[in-house]
């Protein structure tokens, strides 16, 4: 790999051990994936924030990074953590967990990372522009910015993204390069256009292709739909970039000749639905994976207006960012008749397995991860159908 003189000097430790370690990691990953050099990035988004997922090893790693004086050099945001940093008691979180989790948040903050603790930083404080090279972790968010915005990032892991944020550089390979951003398969989609249908579409496509770069015809996603589609495809498969005819910025430059076309319609969506639904009975309903946008908050609040929660045995959590929760006080009041509107967290990275065994969600992404990461039986339905459970 070709390094500049300055990059070489960081690698041999002339700018201290913290930046040296970061350079070792970025160059090791670059070498593995055949990068010819490094590229400047304009932002980073970091995963590896929940104490539940990173454990004591991860916590010690962050402590050592901070003790070594690590600081990010580009605007950086943080993924959701294992609890709402203020309302964690409503989530049945132990004192021990809360103490460790708050420490992790502080450590990220000490490195100069904005501890927004959201998986949708692109609707708030961290929105890349078309053509920006960035280093993002969080599979749903990085797919959204690659696809809907036309920024460029690989699927970074937590420490890799942190190293890139410290250096302001990442290895230049994969989706940073034009040649690797070309559609590999055409998806002829036939869906009803609801957000939930986009979630099922993403599930079906992830199951059908695994990885690759799909080019969609016949769909017209806005932010909320694109977010659901990105999240589902990244969880059911490992899709990090997609194009949508007439919608996403790189779609018009695609050459579709010779590509296979896959039809995804009623039958494929039914198969995806069956795959995700493994229980008819839930103890927790959690909505907001990825985090609810302002528009979704309004929609849910107006749907719930005038309705009552009858079944008190089932808990309901709504998950969003603190910024959006603060921005929608009236929606929050309406929604909280049904359950807490939580910030900073979601059902996948929270330690819900201590309190629940069966969880309902409207998110295909969450329904993929609930069984493996949270030992849950999952139900996956649209919001109206989920709410029928408690009304």
């Amino acid at each position, binding site marked *: 790999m070709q390094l500049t003189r300055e990059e070489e000097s960081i690698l041999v430790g002339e700018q201290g051990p913290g930046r040296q370690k970061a350079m070792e*990691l970025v160059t090791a990953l670059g070498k*593995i994936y055949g990068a010819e050099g490094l590229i400047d990035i304009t932002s980073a988004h970091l995963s590896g924030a929940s104490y539940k997922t990173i*454990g004591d090893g991860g916590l010690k*790693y962050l402590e050592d990074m901070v003790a070594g004086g690590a600081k990010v050099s580009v605007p950086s945001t943080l993924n959701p953590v294992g609890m709402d940093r203020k309302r964690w008691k409503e989530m049945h979180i132990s004192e021990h967990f809360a103490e460790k989790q708050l420490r992790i948040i502080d450590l990220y903050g000490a490195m100069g990372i904005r501890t927004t603790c959201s998986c949708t930083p692109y609707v708030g404080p961290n929105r890349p522009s078309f053509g920006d090279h960035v280093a993002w972790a969080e599979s749903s968010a990085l797919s959204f910015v690659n696809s809907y915005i036309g920024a460029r990032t690989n699927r970074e892991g937590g420490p890799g993204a942190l190293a890139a944020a410290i250096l302001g550089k990442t290895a230049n390979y994969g989706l940073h390069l034009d040649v690797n951003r070309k559609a590999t398969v055409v998806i002829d989609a036939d869906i009803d256009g609801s957000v939930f249908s986009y979630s099922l579409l993403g599930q079906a496509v992830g199951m059908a292709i695994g990885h690759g770069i799909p080019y969609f015809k016949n769909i017209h996603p806005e932010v909320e739909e694109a977010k659901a589609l990105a999240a589902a495809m990244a969880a059911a498969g490992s899709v990090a970039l997609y194009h949508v005819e007439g919608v996403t910025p790189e779609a018009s430059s695609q050459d579709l000749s010779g590509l296979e076309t896959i039809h995804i319609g009623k039958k494929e969506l039914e198969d995806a639905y069956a795959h995700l639904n493994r229980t008819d009975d839930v103890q927790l309903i959690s909505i907001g994976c990825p985090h609810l946008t302002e528009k979704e908050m309004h929609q849910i609040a107006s749907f719930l207006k005038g309705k009552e929660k009858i079944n008190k045995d089932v808990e309901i959590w709504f998950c969003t960012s603190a910024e959006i929760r603060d921005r929608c006080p009236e929606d929050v009041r309406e929604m909280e008749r049904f359950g807490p509107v939580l910030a900073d967290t979601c059902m996948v990275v929270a330690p819900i397995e201590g309190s629940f065994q069966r969880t309902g969600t409207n998110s295909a992404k969450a329904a993929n991860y609930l069984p493996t990461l949270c030992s849950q039986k999952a139900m996956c339905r649209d919001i109206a159908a989920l709410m029928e459970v408690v009304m």
Partner: protein
Amino acid sequence: MTIVGRSISPGKGRGEAIVLNEPLSFLGGVEGSTGELKVADGGNVAGKVLVFPKGKGSTVGSFVMYDLMVHGKQPAAVINESAETIVATGAVISSIPMVDGIQSVSLFRTGDIVEVDGDTGSVEITGVRVRRAVTSAIVRDGKVLLLKRPDTERSFPGKWSMVSGSIEDGESPEEAAVREIREETSMEPGPVAATAEQILVREGDVIWELHPFLFRLSSGDVKLNPENVGYEWVPVGDVGGYDTVDGMDLVLGSLDLC
């Protein structure tokens, strides 16, 4: 014996090898606080050179490696056939020397003393000698000539092999290949149809450095010398059904025969 791989994580490490034949997930596969290995034959990775094909599983595996380091239970070094993000990340952040790009974990045996140089990518297996040899696929009518080695043979007794033998001092690999064919089959091989990069095969405390050759013949009868006890012309696709010497599949693959 020195094998040259690719440096992934800097530093040098030396220790007894633990060799796993399957991809390893550190999350679930290794106990971070004790170093206990929970897969394959178990054991403890602390201070060992951990050899496995590649990483798999959760990205949290990187932090399990860090946890090992925090508890002083980290491996002395890691060797992979091909590195991926999780293990490479864990090795770098935990300052564990790591090398990848070695041909196969089958070159190592659990218990070998191995030195890893993560700065240069070189790996030294102590007490293991290299012997250079040729192995020739002789193909006639889509069939490859296999020779049966006697049970008294020191190397790979009783196995089926292609026409093989050591390269003698002062001899080029091609000269050795032609000589072996004449000696062992009394056939005249004609021109070399293909060669490939050498292939390493472990046998006890020897690593054979095999130079593959392909010869295509249209006629000629095999007359064995006493080095072998039988021969067969075998359709290339059927070789897998024979009890062959190690590495035969790699040699055939390198010559684009399977």
